[in-house]
């Protein structure tokens, strides 16, 4: 089943390649149908997920037995939500690129390929093919940025490529070393070994090195300070849908990798270095927020804000390592649940924001917010949607951002109160720059150049509507989503806290 979900977009990609390139409508429909089928199946699958159980819908076949490689897929509490995220977002990615007409064939086949890689990366449980999907997610993005991006696309694509490839190489070497010492590529198996303390014992002196090597690849992908410089340029220069992919899902791949590969496998290291990790995360939070204060390029602001928000996830995760024990509020579990919910919430919200930001470029021909003014008068619907997403992003209660962040903060505060105090400064900076966006774009006198601007059509509202509904849903009833990962988090936390 999971295999089907994963490879339907690939089939769509192949079909697109074979389709006549003149028939753009058909290409787009193919892409949409492919992703929609996958989404429906994925949602269906998660609906049948048993909340109390461990790994489910497992597909496991021996692949290369001599080096312990299985074709191993499955869904547990951790990736259920992320599969849902991809399922919700992937049709929207396609719809968001509906206006791409130039080289549409390449574009949509790459996009479908990308979606396959995303599903694959979230469901693979064996390092071998997980890594294939992981890298496979990188390549289409590189080409999409390079071929369809903005003015600075070449530089952005190259630095994106260099950073992520170097990170991946480090991770690959680390995991190979891990394999040589433990004889397993299997995430579940590795986790079991870690619980028994075998990994720590066997790696010996190499333990910290391997830990850092494995972490590097993920650190770049999230990204966290100081490996983030590729991020803003890539987010800003990528075409709209690709920015959405990058911020909505790709950054979550990094966080997911941490929860799947680093935290369960290296619990000792997460504990020992928790202070350093927390500090770096805190720097990332503030770094992103303060950088965004002085930008005028809307996509750059959103990119830095994304840097800041994803760092909150890592904040929640690393805090668990710093926890001394389970106190009466079970703070580690709360923090980690917050992190997982934040992945989902931010994926939804940030994708929406990048979508509407892309619309802005369409209207004004520039991404510079200083060139806008008074759009609220001529484009009320657009203003509503944009402000709605912005308020979700700055943590307004009853919207998605708040539910996740309050969990992270409640958890982390019990563990690292001083860090939390500083992290809240990031919240303040976020409010400032996000409201500045609204102030610049929508309020004041309408710029003469925008008098003719037409409001977003109801079709576009319809594209974004699922995201708005989800935002409210997550904000008002987070339990719907949290229940998926509850069991998983409790197990993981009990593993980390001795």
């Amino acid at each position, binding site marked *: 089943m999971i295999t089907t979900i994963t490879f339907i977009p690939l089939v769509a990609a192949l079909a697109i390649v074979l389709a006549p390139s003149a028939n753009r409508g058909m290409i787009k429909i193919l892409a949409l149908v492919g992703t929609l089928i996958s989404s429906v199946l994925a949602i269906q699958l998660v609906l049948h997920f048993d909340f109390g159980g461990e790994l489910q819908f497992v597909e496991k076949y021996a692949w290369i037995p001599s080096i312990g490689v299985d074709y191993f897929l499955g869904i547990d509490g951790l990736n259920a939500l992320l599969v849902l995220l991809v399922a919700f977002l992937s049709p929207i990615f396609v719809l968001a690129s509906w206006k791409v007409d130039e080289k549409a064939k390449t574009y949509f086949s790459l996009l479908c390929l990308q979606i396959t890689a995303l599903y694959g990366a979230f469901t693979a449980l064996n390092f071998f093919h997980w890594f294939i999907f992981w890298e496979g997610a990188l390549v289409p993005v590189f080409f999409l940025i390079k071929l369809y991006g903005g003015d600075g696309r070449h530089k952005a694509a190259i630095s994106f490529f260099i950073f992520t490839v170097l990170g991946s190489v480090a991770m690959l070497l680390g995991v190979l070393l891990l394999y040589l010492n433990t004889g397993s590529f299997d995430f579940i198996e590795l986790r079991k070994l870690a619980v028994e303390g075998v990994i720590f014992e066997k790696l010996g002196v190499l333990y910290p090195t391997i830990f850092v090597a494995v972490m590097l690849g993920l650190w770049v992908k999230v990204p966290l300070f100081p490996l983030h410089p590729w991020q803003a340029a890539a987010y800003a220069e990528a075409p709209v849908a690709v920015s959405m992919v990058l911020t909505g899902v790709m950054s979550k791949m990094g966080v997911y990798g941490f929860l799947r590969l680093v935290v369960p496998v290296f619990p000792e290291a997460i504990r020992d270095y928790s202070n350093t990790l927390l500090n770096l995360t805190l720097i990332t939070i503030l770094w992103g927020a*303060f950088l965004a204060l002085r930008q005028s390029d809307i996509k750059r602001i959103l990119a830095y804000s994304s840097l800041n928000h994803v760092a909150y996830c890592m904040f929640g995760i690393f805090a668990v390592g710093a926890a001394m024990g389970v106190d009466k509020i079970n703070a580690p579990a709360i923090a980690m649940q917050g992190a997982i919910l934040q992945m989902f919430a931010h994926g939804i919200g940030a994708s929406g924001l990048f979508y509407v930001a892309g619309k802005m470029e369409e209207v004004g021909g520039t991404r510079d917010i200083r060139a806008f003014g008074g759009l609220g008068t001529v484009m009320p619907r657009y203003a509503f949607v944009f402000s709605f997403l912005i308020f979700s992003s700055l943590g307004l209660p009853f919207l998605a951002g708040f539910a996740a962040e309050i969990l992270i903060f409640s958890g982390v505060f019990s563990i690292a109160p001083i860090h939390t105090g500083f992290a809240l400064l990031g919240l303040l900076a976020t409010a400032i720059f996000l409201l500045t966006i609204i102030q610049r774009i929508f309020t004041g006198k309408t710029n003469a150049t925008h008098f003719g601007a037409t409001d977003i059509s109801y079709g576009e509202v319809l594209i974004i509507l699922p995201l708005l509904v989800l935002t409210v849903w997550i904000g008002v009833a987070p*339990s719907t989503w949290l229940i998926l990962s509850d069991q998983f988090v409790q197990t993981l936390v009990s593993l980390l806290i001795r």
Partner: protein
Amino acid sequence: MNLFNFTDSVGWLMWVPICPLIAGVFLALLKPSGRVSAFVAIAALAVSLILSLKAFAMTWGHEAQIETHNFTWMHIGGVDLEFGMVLNALTGSMLAMVSLIGLLIFIYSWSYMSHDDRMGRFFCYLSIFMVGMLGLVVANSLLLFFMFWEIVGLASYLLIGFWFQKPSAAAAAKKAFITTRIGDLGFLIGLLWAFKATGTFLLFDNGSGILETTQIAALAASENVMFGMNTAGAIALFLFIGAIGKSGQLPLHVWLPDAMEGPTPVSALIHAATMVAAGVFLVARAFPLFIADLAMLEVVAWFGAFTTLFAALVAVGQYDIKRILAYSTVSQLGLMMVGLGAGGLALKEGGISIGMFHLLTHAFFKALLFLGAGSIIHGCNDEQDVRLMGGVFSKMKISSIAYLAGTIALCAFPFTSGYFSKDQILLSAWTASGPIFWISAIASLLTAFYMTRQCCYVFLGKYRGKGHVHESSPIMTVPLVILAVFAVALGYVSEHFYHILDYLSGVHVHQHESIVVIISWIIALGGIGLGLLVYARAKLGIDETDPVKKVFPVPYRWLENRLYADEFYEATAFKLWDVLAILITVLEAIMNQLVDFVTVVVRNIGSFFLNTIDKRVIDEVSFDGTCSRIYNSSQINKLIQNGFLQGYLRLLTGGAVLIGILLIVFTR
């Protein structure tokens, strides 16, 4: 959760905020015409009012009783994050006040906004505001309280920036949101700390809530957690930071006067009667935490005292009618804080009554003043500068009388409602601390003075503005009259017939000190007298110097410039913030340069491969130099070095053949 059981449980309290929510969503989605929107919003709020009055009635006579209804919001790792509703005297009285004043202001807005084509949107925002306000009043969970608190902030942002085409309104909205958010972060830390220390967000939960004796005792047991305070005090301190932001107390007061950019009913509803009182309400709600550490009560009282004096001083130097009222609001909020702080010091739990009583009376007369001001502004053709008014009394009788009723209540003229509540504050300040008492007394004197000054400007003399003054429509004046009745009579009735002080806190409150009563008479009458003395006969107008300015020109200019608070922040906090942002931007730029450098290096390696022999390195330095020498000396070389790739290769192979032959020959 049993939402429909209206008799036993208090779960139905949730309907109080839900009613306006339904109206708000309805208005936002369906966008009906202005008239229909107003009707829907008013109807929904009327239902809320009925429910609120039911809640009020249920608590009346059962002061000490606390009823709760809790439910789980999230369930994580065996721990519940709970929400809930609470019904006690504080809830009941606040609900009744908020929804009553809210309803009156809704009705008033119907007329006030009737010419605005975005009236539907306006009522939508107002409804959202009522959701937040009523929600935080019923909330039994610090977290839920905070969430509604933020919703209130959002509504305030939207309403201040309602006329967003005006850049100043948009800027004021942003300023309000961000300034209050600074406080909110304090609140957030407070509630996180409370959650950490007690393991629950619930305020009352059958003995295990944050505000109940067992938890408070545990919190108070820890010594010297922060600044010599115990845990309860530390939590209270952070909660108080939230209250400072929302209630416009001294360091964070700057947003409130600017918030007057919004439509006048908004100023009345949000920035005078209800929202700003939310901070005071928070302190009252979390009062057990505050009493657990006496140092904290002193902090509250001193902050309040400074604010009340500061704002009263600034109000003397203002000319904008709404701005005067805004500073007056700040001042009165400070006075409420004094009431809570000093009241707590003097009377323990009874302190709630002192602060809350003033909150309730103030809500009525300040709403009245703002609505009256709105009516006057309307009548004077949207003029807000008091120097361009004058002689309004004879033209707008109803509005003027109502306005004067509000004024005397605010001045604490004997036997008006302001008199009773302010009297209580001064009494407890007298018991608690001498300096605080005198500061509050001077502020009260100034209050009477600047209100008299304002009335002289507005009502006396001849009309100095443009056009004609005209009375407003009955839809606007009827709420004024109702509010005026409350403003004058509420204090006497509630204190003498119903013992509201005992009701509010659930303990018996009685304080009496003849000298304080005498002082407060002197203050009220003295202030008014002084004002009349200075302003009644003076020549007033835009071209005239203010009589006080003639005597004290320099200090008065300071007051006109609002004691340079905004400029101070501009020069300090903003600069610091900017410097931080610039610093990080520079560092990021340096990092980007590094990345670019690496990219360039990688590219150069690439182009090195690309050209096989890099022109710059080989050609110019070694190859070219050597080559040209050989080139000149030998003709054979010219044949070989022809730049033809395969030519080189063939030579290379020839070399290999030679080596092979040599090997064969010599290894034999």
